[in-house]
């Protein structure tokens, strides 16, 4: 998340009120795209969480012996009946192409850890998004007041503004 720091204007101690209208609107656009990106990331995280919980459910079903007769997909539309002969012997994808052999309780622990880890990240991300949205609101307000003030100060003349 290193790229989600506040824009450079904060580092140089420029007050938002001092920025010109085009600067403000480009800042607003940047905020908007940031928020869109973060929201996308958030939904990706949520997806990952639900995938892992599904895995967890499956492991639970296997562990409780309620799932030992399954249909094995040979193709998308062709299935054969199968029976789990070693229900306590699972192979878990741990990432980067590596797989670990685990028993049911280990696998469950693994998935629970994953879910917890991702949930924490998702919560953090949600907070960041919220903050960004408040910032955006403030920015939009300032932009609106500035625009209104500008319109008042030069009612008729459409001359190039030297803001």
């Amino acid at each position, binding site marked *: 998340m290193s*790229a989600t720091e506040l824009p450079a204007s904060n580092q140089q101690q420029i007050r938002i009120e001092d920025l010109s209208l085009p600067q403000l609107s480009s800042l607003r656009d940047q905020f908007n795209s940031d928020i869109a990106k973060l929201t996308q990331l958030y939904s990706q995280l949520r997806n990952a969480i639900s995938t892992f919980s599904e895995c967890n459910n499956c492991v639970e079903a296997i562990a409780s012996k309620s799932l030992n007769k399954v249909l094995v997909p040979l193709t998308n539309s062709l299935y054969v009946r199968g029976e789990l002969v070693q229900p306590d012997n699972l192979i878990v994808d*741990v*990432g*980067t192409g*590596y*797989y670990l052999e685990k028993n049911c309780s280990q696998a469950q622990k693994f998935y629970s850890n994953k879910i917890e880890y991702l949930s924490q990240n998702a919560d953090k991300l949600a907070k960041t998004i919220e903050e960004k949205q408040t910032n955006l609101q403030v920015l939009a307000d300032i932009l609106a007041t500035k625009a209104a003030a500008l319109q008042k100060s030069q009612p008729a003349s459409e001359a190039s503004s030297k803001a």
Partner: protein
Amino acid sequence: MSLEKNLEKESLEMRKLQSEYSKLIETSQQLSSQLQENELVQKEFSLVGSDAKIYKMIGPVLVPQDKEEAGLNVEKRIEYIKAELTRVEARIKELATLQEKKSLEIYNLQMKFKEQATISK
């Protein structure tokens, strides 16, 4: 006229800098997510006993792996990614300062341009 050309040249360079910058940012994000994934795998390796069975997906098959070898492999990868990451980050910093300089130059040129325009009126 030369001022105008100069300005054009500078803004072209600026655009180049910006595109390289955003590409690098993307690369660094990719690298950090890879780093994270590898670190998670390493953590997982450290949690299991030495008798644990490790497989690696090579093409469509799972090939059994020696645990020590797999651990070393991941460690090496992490090192490599970290080195890449520092390299990319250094370049990003460099580009950021370059961009700042360029934008200042462009601003100055624009000011000069405006001045000339008002004088010639």
